[in-house]
């Protein structure tokens, strides 16, 4: 068994929510990625047992989706948007600066395991283009300079939880819409802080 008990309990709890076990595959893959920063072969074996499908079936699904990473990622996954609204709002400059600062090319992770860089398709922040996500927490209205400041800050502060509102306030600009009240929820690993959010504390 390679998963901690708390993770297995969480997995079982998730499986319970669905009429058919296999539906829990997606959420379970997030639990796997939260553990190792990617979908490891060990986790694939674990999940295949929990759900009752073959390993290659798990892998087939995992590798279809771009958010399930096949290689280890760093503590902070930097995803800069390159789709149309960002593209015509100079996202290429942001991309260039972030790459320079982190010294990474697409889908690479640094040696310290701090950053993984990727350029991604539309993240639904077109009104605030160009935009970036850090562990799926969105920052809108970036400038190339602010993007570098953001990276620097992450490197120095190394926050345990990445909070969109906090980053937006510090480094963001024009927003897609008024975000209204402040919100201190966030993500604690390179997965969207959703089901994994509370589990982190138990582990």
């Amino acid at each position, binding site marked *: 068994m390679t998963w901690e008990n708390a993770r297995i309990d969480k997995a079982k709890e998730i499986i319970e929510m669905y009429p058919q076990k296999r539906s829990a595959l997606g959420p379970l893959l997030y639990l796997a990625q939260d553990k190792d920063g990617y979908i490891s072969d060990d986790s694939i074996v674990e999940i295949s047992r929990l759900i009752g499908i073959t*390993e290659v079936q798990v892998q087939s699904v995992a590798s279809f*989706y771009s958010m399930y990473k096949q290689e280890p990622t760093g503590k902070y996954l930097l995803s800069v948007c390159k789709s149309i609204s960002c593209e015509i709002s100079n996202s290429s400059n942001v991309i260039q600066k972030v790459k320079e600062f982190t010294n990474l090319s697409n889908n690479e992770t640094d040696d310290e395991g701090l950053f993984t860089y990727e350029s991604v398709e539309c993240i639904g922040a077109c009104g605030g283009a160009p935009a970036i996500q850090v562990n799926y927490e969105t920052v809108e209205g970036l400038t190339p300079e602010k993007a570098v400041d953001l990276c620097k800050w992450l490197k120095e502060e190394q926050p345990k939880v990445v909070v969109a509102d906090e980053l937006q306030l510090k480094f963001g600009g024009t927003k897609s819409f008024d975000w209204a009240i402040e919100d201190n929820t966030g993500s604690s690993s390179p997965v969207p802080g959703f089901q994994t959010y509370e589990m982190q504390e138990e582990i």
Partner: protein
Amino acid sequence: MTEKITFTVDGKTLEGKQGQLLIEACEDSGIHIPRFCWHKRLDPVGMCRMCLVEIETPRGKALVPSCTTQVTDELIVETESNTVKKAQEGVLEFLLINHPLDCPICDKAGECPLQDQTMAYGPGESRFIEEKRHFEKPIPISDIVLLDRERCILCARCTRFSDEISGDPLIEFIQRGNKTQVNTFPDEPFKSYFSGNTVQICPVGALTATSYRFKARPWDLKKVSSTCNCCSLGCSVELNVSQNKMLRILGEDNEFTNQGWLSDKGRYNFEYLHSDNRLTNIKLKDNNSFVDANISEATEKLKNKIEELHNPDIKFLIGANSTNEEYFVINKFANLMNRNEFLSKDKSNVYFADDNMFSGYFGENHQNASFEDLDSSDVIVVWSEDIKDNIPVLFLRIKKAVKNGVKLVVLGHTNSSLESLADLYLGQDVISNNFELKTNLGNIKEFQNIIENKKVTIIVGKSTPLQQKKYLDNLVDHIQKYSQAKFLNCFTKANTFGALQHIDQIKGLNEFCNEYEESNKNIVFTIGANPVNASFFGSKIENILKKADFVVSLDIFINATTELADLILPTTSFGEKEGTVTNMEMRVLKQNKILPGPGSALSEWEYLTMISKSLDKEIKYENVDEINKALCDEYENNEELPSFENLNKPSNLFGMKNRKNIDINIKDLEKNDLSILMVKRLYGDSSTQINSPSISMLGSERFIELNSKTLEKFGISSKTANLIQDQHSIFVNIKINNLLPDNIVLAPINRRGFKNLDPTKDFDIREATNMKELSVN
């Protein structure tokens, strides 16, 4: 009943069936629509888009894939319009842009639809100047299958087969979009009993078989249709031969039997034909070693022996690989040799080498089922040896029936592989370790609900030689009382049913051992039988053969049985002889010859006629045709005779079904408690398999299965252990199988090392000491 409808294709009015797929309806009328992903036996996926045609819709013409579109009455279809042509050429170009240009070294070249269509419609010159997609060239995904992802056109045939048909989805699409590739999981090779089917249905050279790689070009192959002899299902096959060497066996799509599929054993168990170990000369034992002899020396020797022994007792141990024609002659010959010839039938001297033989369910009160009945019945009930391991393609047919809604009831403890398909699995609560029914079936409500007043197909046979038949009777009687039942007697070996049909009366190995009288003078013939190996009675028979006055073996190898013979006559094997065989539905099918036998090997019937001649007993046949005619003469009903003439008609995939009386004279063994359940696995140490290099390793793993509760008692935590009984100790892998009852281990009798164990004696399982230490001690 499906309704007949008419539709129009390219101006011609055609007939089809409501709901039929357009591509199939066109095919039936001789119009071929190009395709890659569609396969008659798989659910359509509509992925390749090669089969696009235009149909009229209320909103004008639309391009639709003909493999996912059903024909409807008055549908108007164009398969050759400019739009269709352009779309198909477009698809072909798309498929080719990333396809390697390695036809010269590709096994598929010459029978590759991609190559053919490129020749027919393809663009002359590539407009694609970018770099092609690259993958590591062929990677082995199992011991017998190689995968070349560059050649793959992503038709999903292999993945669909594994998922839908064989139910072991071990090969899947990985990644998505333009990066999509087919692959297996790194630590989980394509370990399927049916993997070869994916090689056969792969439309390109992406999946290839190690046994055929670089061996031949399709245009060099000589081909003949035949019937596989690996189990009693009778799969239709095509034998491919080049320069007198069998190179490949393909499944033929026979609606009635295998529907195109084969097990890997049926497909790859042929290299032995050309093994150096094959017997090519007659061998006479001389001072414990064999010397070559010719046929007249051999018959002379035998004749002298018979005279010298004065009216000896002559017994026949026969195997399952003879043809009906051979059994017919064996029967005649055995009768001639029978001292009790004129006494009574139960003095039969023919013994069939299968541990799980019993008297079966035949005759007026038991209606024989066809495989088709599996699809049309409401319920299938199975109590027998493991179907998947012993009649693999029957497993596929059961799986298909279940997929289409037929209910399945499985009685334990041998058919674990059917459990996941079963609506009801009756395990140790209902069945004892000795395969006795513990309760009246009528008390099992779920069982009663499923079977009552239904059409039931029962697949029934002994799960172990020690099982008492009365429990099978209980099951059979119960179902016959409450529902309409048809029977598939589950004798699993090759042409068992042909033997039953053509031997006046058959007995079993237990009868052989019991009736053998040491005080008599004894001659034993073994014909294609190897009961010393992998049999419950192995050691008893070994002792008998060692002491018998004279043993004659007709066989293709020297093996545990034939090495005890005084005279060995090398015989022909599958593909080297012509004849008929009968499958478990009592369907007679044809086996054909495409190869000469090795050296001076002859058919069994040729030896027996020669011997009879030397003994001045007249069995006179010049060729198999004559035997087949004589055999047909014994049928009462003249209409559906299993004659070569009837069976050679290429359109006759149905074969011939005709009733013959069957007489099996086999009694139960004495009741005894079972501690080791010996079962046959698909792969083992049969002489044919160990002499076929591509698959010889597949039967090498030594393992036991037991439930976790039983394992706990032995305090073993590792995945390996030693299974110990008396002085025998076998190093085995341990597999947990919680469907097994407590206090029993399951072990493969056809794997090396297990045959010396006594299934009724206690055993121990001990932590495996380091292998090295073992040899030091």
